[in-house]
């Protein structure tokens, strides 16, 4: 905020402190404007844009089977070797993953696995709270990936949430109709 709207007022302005008054008017405006802080993790949570690369999830088809064909392209392209895929053949003759593990502690969330996937199976979602006190839980398996939250229909909004004090101290989005508010709309501009 470089410009404060101070006009050159000459010696009369100097005597009556036009510059100081302009500063006071500016800060008063800010004092009366809304705050921009997210009340995270207590009441609000930022839902990132849909392009956000967060916690992975695994897409399933309409029959409930995973889309993954266990081709191993994702584990090959992964720059930090954090994906383990072991294929097997189902009774229908389909190739499916027997093991599909991702080590979130190693993952750098580059999204190359998503790009390489030919079957629209592995995706990176908008979930970003993966903190834990137990490192072994950072190795997520196939069923974790299927159960992981999908991309939400909106992004770039602040939604009501609640801190899960009893559980893993993550901030849980509150179910409800609130579509959240656009954080940028609160930024005061002149």
């Amino acid at each position, binding site marked *: 905020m470089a410009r404060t709207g101070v006009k050159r007022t000459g010696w009369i302005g100097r005597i009556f402190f036009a510059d*100081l008054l302009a*500063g*006071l008017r*500016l*800060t*008063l405006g*800010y*004092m*009366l*404007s*809304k*705050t*921009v*802080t997210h*009340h995270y993790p*207590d009441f609000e949570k930022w839902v990132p844009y849909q392009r956000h690369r967060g916690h992975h999830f695994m897409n399933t088809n309409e029959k409930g089977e995973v889309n993954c064909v266990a081709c191993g392209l994702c584990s090959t392209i992964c720059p930090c070797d954090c994906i383990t895929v072991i294929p097997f053949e189902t009774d229908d003759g389909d190739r499916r993953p027997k093991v599909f593990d991702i080590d979130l502690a190693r993952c750098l969330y580059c999204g190359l696995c998503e790009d390489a996937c030919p079957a629209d199976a592995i995706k990176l979602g908008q979930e970003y709270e993966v903190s834990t006190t137990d490192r072994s839980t950072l190795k997520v398996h196939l069923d974790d990936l299927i159960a992981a939250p999908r991309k939400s229909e909106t992004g770039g909004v602040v939604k009501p949430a609640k801190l899960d004090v009893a559980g893993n101290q993550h901030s849980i989005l509150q179910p409800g109709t609130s579509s959240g508010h656009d954080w940028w709309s609160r930024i*005061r501009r002149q």
Partner: protein
Amino acid sequence: MEYVLSFLPMIVKMAIVIGVLLLLPLPLTWLERKIAAHIQQRPGPMRVGWHGLLQPLADAIKLLTKEDHIPAEADRMLFAIAPVVALVPPFLVFVAIPFGDPIQVFGTTVTLSLADLNVGLLFILAVSGIGVFGTILAGWASNSKYAVLGSLRSIAQMISYEIPMGFSVIGVVMLANSMQLTQIVAAQQGLWNIVVQPIGFFVFFVAGLAEAQRIPFDLPEAEGDLGAGYHTEYSGIRFSLFMLAEYLVLVALAFLNVLLFFGGWLGGPAFLPPFIWLFLKVGFFIWVFMWLRFTFPRYRYDQLMTIGWKVLLPLSLLNILVSGFLML
């Protein structure tokens, strides 16, 4: 028995004033943090109590249970008494501050002040001048370069600004023909002094900011360039005594501004008790001081001296001259 009973209102009043003054910094720190936060578009303390209302309490517990550390090279006795020396003058100022006209309680007349001195204003100016000793002793006893620089600055600042401050109220005293604060307030019946003494108010306000060592005149503590100035070496309860003194000076200053220039408890709406109206005005001034604090940067040392000697002092003298001519 009658003789003992006659002291009862005084003791009750003293207990109330001391209790309120000791507890006042708690809401004031909360208010200051909230104002600072909202000016910077933050919400400020939010998690302890409703909108962080219990935050000062948590801070107080933290400060009181902290280690009471005295630096090895410090002058231990001076180090220990400096916070107390800083704390006494603000309390003494409130001895002479009236909070309203005398009221009737159970058939006896109770004056709403501890002592309505007939030289009240002089007493307040004199006592608030002692406050600088706490700063000087703290800076000297700490045996630290930042602390001693802060206290040196504070001496120069206090001496420079006490003079225009004293001169600026002379116009008010001339108008009221008295130094008694109740008389000064009574003389503003109908017309507040701010209307006839705008220059006097301006000088008093600015000099008062400097006396209270608030931004833009907070060179003695200057977090940016002196660590924390004269209380760099203080921690725990001794530091909180300094904070207490600082906030009480602020409140006393707000009271003086209201009593001398904004009609004290006069001029409020009929449904409000006069002392509540006085407290509302004082609250407004406290808010203004905090607003100023988070708006302005700090003046440089030479600018501080220039403002004191070359601007405020001539202005206050001019004010006396003009008021004198107008009264003749």
